[in-house]
């Protein structure tokens, strides 16, 4: 079973259709599946629902799919730093389902773990809770949130072996494992495919069972906010 494909377009072949639900890893511009996002843009697929913490910036990351109006609905926790995202939302060109960040991550993990729904305190008493079942456990109020079952997961990892075992790097891990879990099909882009046996089996962040297709490629890895400190003089 060959999982390794030559490029993003081939890896997505046959998987895209209008109106589908895509779960995307990444946080801001960190750990985003930039090659797969570009290939999705180029495919022209439309009316997408995208579950992703945010939508990158105007001209990078998922912002690219907003720019082309391929996205009908976002499921996100954060709009900030993307003017086009806020504009489309406020002008009602784009549907936006706000999810608290932890609820979004847990909903993805739940979908991937066969959990149809779960009770969380997050958002109780806020507009996020509107229309959701409330249950009291041990005197505290919890709201019912549903697992997300996506048609496709798009994920960025650091390294993989050809069986799809994945390793992430630093805070670029973020939503990628949970997004990977909740898709019927999961396509992953990595910076390097390494030989089997060269990853420590105790340090594989996401086992290959979650990964269906895999590409290696060059990543721009743009930084959203460069912040530095002064080097003390000796």
């Amino acid at each position, binding site marked *: 079973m060959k999982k390794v494909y030559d490029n993003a377009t081939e890896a997505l072949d046959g998987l895209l259709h209008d109106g589908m639900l895509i779960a995307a890893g990444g*946080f*801001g*511009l*960190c*750990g985003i599946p930039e090659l797969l996002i570009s290939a999705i843009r180029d495919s022209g697929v439309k009316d997408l629902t995208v579950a992703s*913490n*945010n939508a990158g910036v105007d001209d990078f990351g998922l912002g690219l799919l907003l720019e082309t109006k391929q996205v009908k609905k976002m499921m*996100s*926790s*954060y*709009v*900030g*730093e993307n003017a086009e995202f*806020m504009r489309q*939302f*406020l002008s009602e060109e784009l549907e936006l389902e*706000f999810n*608290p*960040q*932890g*609820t979004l*991550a*847990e909903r*993805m*993990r739940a979908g991937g773990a066969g959990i149809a729904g779960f009770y*969380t*305190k*997050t*958002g*109780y*008493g*806020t*507009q*996020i809770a509107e229309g959701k079942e409330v249950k009291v456990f041990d005197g505290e109020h919890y709201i019912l949130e549903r697992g997300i079952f996506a048609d496709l997961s798009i994920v960025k990892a*650091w390294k993989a072996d050809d069986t799809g075992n994945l390793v*992430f*790097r*630093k*805070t*670029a*891990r*973020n*939503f*990628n*494992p*949970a997004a990977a879990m909740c898709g019927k099909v999961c396509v992953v882009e990595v910076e390097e495919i390494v030989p089997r046996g060269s990853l420590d089996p105790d340090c594989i*962040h996401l086992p290959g069972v979650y990964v269906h297709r895999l590409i290696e490629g060059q990543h721009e*890895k*743009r*930084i*959203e*906010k*460069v*912040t*530095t*400190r002064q*080097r003390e003089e000796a």
Partner: protein
Amino acid sequence: MAWDRNQMAERAAQELEDGMYVNLGIGIPTLVANYVGDKDITLQSENGMLGMGPFPYEGEEDPDLINAGKQTITELNRTSYFDSAMSFGMIRGGKIAAAILGAMEVSEEGDLANWMIPGKLVKGMGGAMDLVAGVRKVIVVMDHTNKAGESKLLKSCTLPLTGKGVVNRIITNLGVLDVVEGGLRIVETADGVTEEEIRAATDATIVT
């Protein structure tokens, strides 16, 4: 003489005790890290890191290493990385001792609003709803009044809530207030600020 941003951060740092795991929000709360002194504090960044270090030296920025405000940061020798599901698991599960957050409004019942102004500004709640629902102590650091001079400590919030009855303590430029039965209680006044000045600047019920 009300407190400035740094004095508010310094006062907020006094809330932190040795051994605590803490989440700092964007803005003034970020400055709190400058005032922890010798205390053994571990900072969480909710995008998947415990043990957040300072900004990198120029030229050493790593695109794979950012905080929840998307700023480049560094790691420490105690640092661990994990995914977003685990990160918010530890937040909701009460493993994080305290969150220090900014706010647009706080009500006398501890309601917090800090994620949107309908029709005008939509930031999104990010991880704030999870933090206020999950961490053991929620401390708000903000100016006492808005730019129009109106109190940000209200009888009830006018903006969409981030959390209901979640705030424990409020540190403003005028002083420190706790959310207690029946309203807010003044715990401390900024240097040269009187209780009367705080009362005058506060729309919320002040109890004694």
